[in-house]
């Protein structure tokens, strides 16, 4: 940022450098205000604008899909994106920088939780309004947030503790099936488990417990990988964890009472946007708390040198068990949410394809970093949706991108960085 300081001598690029230094002064809350304006503009004017621009309907994903499908509409899609997103975001961000900074400074002096909640509420309103435009956006948002939870939880094992674990789809399956079984048995009349045992009206209140139950079952399953990890590391443990994933998949396939290969369906529709959002925030918060504490940094000690960790009084076995169970717990919760978003699960979902997705997200985003996981999950998810019209070529573009990241940033985009909420929300002036 220092390099862009404008001086009178450089007046011809003064506009751009002033713009850039202006942007660097916008605090997070200013960007959120801008984002709110952008989605409001789209909410109220989106239909009219897309009509005048000759677009068939509001472009669902920043115009990418429209652009790739119908190249002739590139100019109007670009115009739409600029008018609806970029202009309001930049204008409100820049113009409100002053008051936003004063507000940020005010919040900075208050308790962190208050400031965090205000930011989160703003963020939630933004995504809520944005997703109100189409069901497709809503589904994509939910799946993206679930992907964030999965990526973050595998980062605890693969990044923070440095064990290459491949069992995440297995943990996810355990969570998805246990949570679904619970909600189906207790609150739903369905063909697998028969009539509901409890009044369905109670269900939504009970849903968090079902998710936690799913998480706990996944955590128990994680013991199968955690216990061998006392004696083996690296490649061998990776194979064990891979085996675990396949075991879970084939066990479910062969259990008739959970539907076998046909899967389980008609889960109640309780994974709505606020629920998924709240769980994702919770997941990020808890995992970030843990990895920043000295107890959580024991994971790094075990990764960087286990013998030294032991000699420095770190209980390495406890650390490994906790890490695997903790990571699996969140994968299980994510699985439970996933099952209730799609309202259908089958064992085929939790195979090698899912594993590849999760691994791509975590290694793309960056190991040992909460922000990295969020960035990785969001970008890979959005990218794979945006590039959908490319069909087959999508699976050439995304892997190529991964290769490029691995060449230029071998540990991922944003690796080994601490996520300090207070620092991020602070005023920029």
């Amino acid at each position: 940022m220092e390099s862009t300081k404008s001086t009178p001598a450089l007046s011809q690029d003064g506009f751009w450098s002033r713009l850039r230094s202006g942007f660097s002064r916008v605090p997070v809350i200013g960007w959120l205000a801008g984002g709110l304006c952008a989605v409001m503009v789209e909410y109220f004017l989106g239909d009219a604008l897309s009509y005048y621009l000759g677009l068939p309907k509001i472009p669902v994903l920043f115009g990418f899909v429209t652009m790739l499908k119908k190249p002739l509409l590139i100019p109007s899609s670009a115009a739409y994106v600029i008018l609806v997103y970029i202009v309001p975001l930049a204008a409100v961000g820049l113009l409100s920088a002053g008051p936003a900074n004063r507000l940020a400074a005010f919040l900075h002096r208050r308790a962190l939780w208050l400031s965090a909640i205000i930011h989160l509420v703003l963020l939630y309103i933004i995504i809520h309004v944005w997703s109100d435009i189409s069901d497709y956006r809503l589904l994509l948002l939910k799946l993206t947030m679930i992907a964030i939870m999965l990526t973050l939880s595998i980062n605890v094992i693969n990044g923070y503790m440095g064990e290459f674990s491949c069992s995440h789809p297995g943990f996810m399956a355990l969570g998805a099936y246990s949570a679904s079984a619970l909600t189906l048995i207790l609150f739903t009349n369905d063909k697998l488990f028969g009539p509901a045992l409890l009044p369905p009206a109670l269900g939504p209140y009970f849903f968090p417990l079902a998710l936690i139950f799913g998480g706990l079952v996944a955590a128990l399953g994680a013991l199968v990988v955690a216990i061998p990890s006392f004696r083996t590391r690296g490649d061998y443990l990776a194979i064990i964890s891979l085996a675990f994933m396949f075991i879970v998949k084939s066990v479910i396939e062969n259990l008739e009472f959970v539907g076998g290969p046909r899967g389980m369906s008609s889960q109640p529709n309780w994974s709505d946007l606020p629920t998924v959002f709240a769980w994702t925030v919770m997941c990020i918060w808890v995992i970030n708390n843990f990895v920043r504490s000295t107890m959580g940094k024991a994971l790094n000690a075990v990764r960087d040198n286990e013998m030294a960790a032991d000699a420095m009084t770190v209980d390495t076995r406890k650390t490994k068990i906790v890490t695997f169970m903790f990571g699996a717990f969140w994968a299980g919760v994510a699985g439970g949410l996933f099952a209730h978003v799609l309202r259908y699960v089958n064992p085929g979902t939790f195979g090698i394809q899912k594993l590849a997705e999760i691994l791509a997200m975590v290694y793309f985003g960056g190991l040992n970093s909460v922000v990295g996981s969020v960035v990785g999950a969001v970008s890979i998810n959005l990218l794979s949706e945006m590039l959908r019209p490319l069909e087959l070529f999508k699976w050439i573009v995304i892997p190529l991108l991964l290769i490029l990241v691995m060449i230029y940033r071998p540990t991922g985009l944003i690796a080994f960085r601490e996520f300090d909420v207070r620092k991020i929300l602070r005023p920029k002036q």
Partner: protein
Amino acid sequence: MPLLQVRNMTHYFGGLRAVHNFNLVIEPGEIKGLIGPNGAGKTTIFNLITGIHTPTEGQIELEGRSLIGLRPHEVASRGLGRTFQNMLLWRHMNVLDHVKMAQYSRLGYGLLDAFFGTPRLQREEQRVTDEAMRLLELFDVAKYAGQLVGNLPYGAQRRVEMARAMATKPKILFLDEPTAGMTPEELVQMIGIIRQVHRDFGVAIFLIEHRLKFVMELCQSIQTLVFGEVIAEGPPEEIQNNPKVVEAYLGKEDIT
């Protein structure tokens, strides 16, 4: 009662006898040395006492309590700190976190506190940080607190490792070749640091060393290990002139 007592410790790796009938008594505040040529089993003895391997036979007692069967972190929490021949610092962790980490067994909070960032966690983290900073200042590496260990000069890394070992609050400190790879200048500094640790913390020290000069300078008593067996034991002057020791290091005098 001696601080550490090892009696008739023998260890086999498969059929190979690595250590034979090893005895050791360390009194509080004593500095003892263990010398011997390469492959004599010095590091194995360290690993046996610190719980990395369990000896095939023999007893190890710290303050009268047996250490046999305890896991390394339990041995360390009982008050047996150590450093390593090649330091084994944590590559991706900063200096401050190294010294905080070594206080793991004394963290006064549980997993749930760590998950939810309770006030108790914050209080404890503050305490641990203060303690760590105090140690870093004592070892003159406080200015590196926020840096990754890999960016530090070699001598400073050694001091960080010493600070880390002292953060476990040891009653007895095991030093595995503390001067490995050091220049003569750094060696003099190291002698200073070890004397400082001995004086300020009042710990007993047991060290393995290659450089005889260094051991002679520091230790009150020295054991010489050859092929897993102690061939000589006594004060430095005696060891220096012991024909068996000279033979082990330089070979036999009468070459035919």
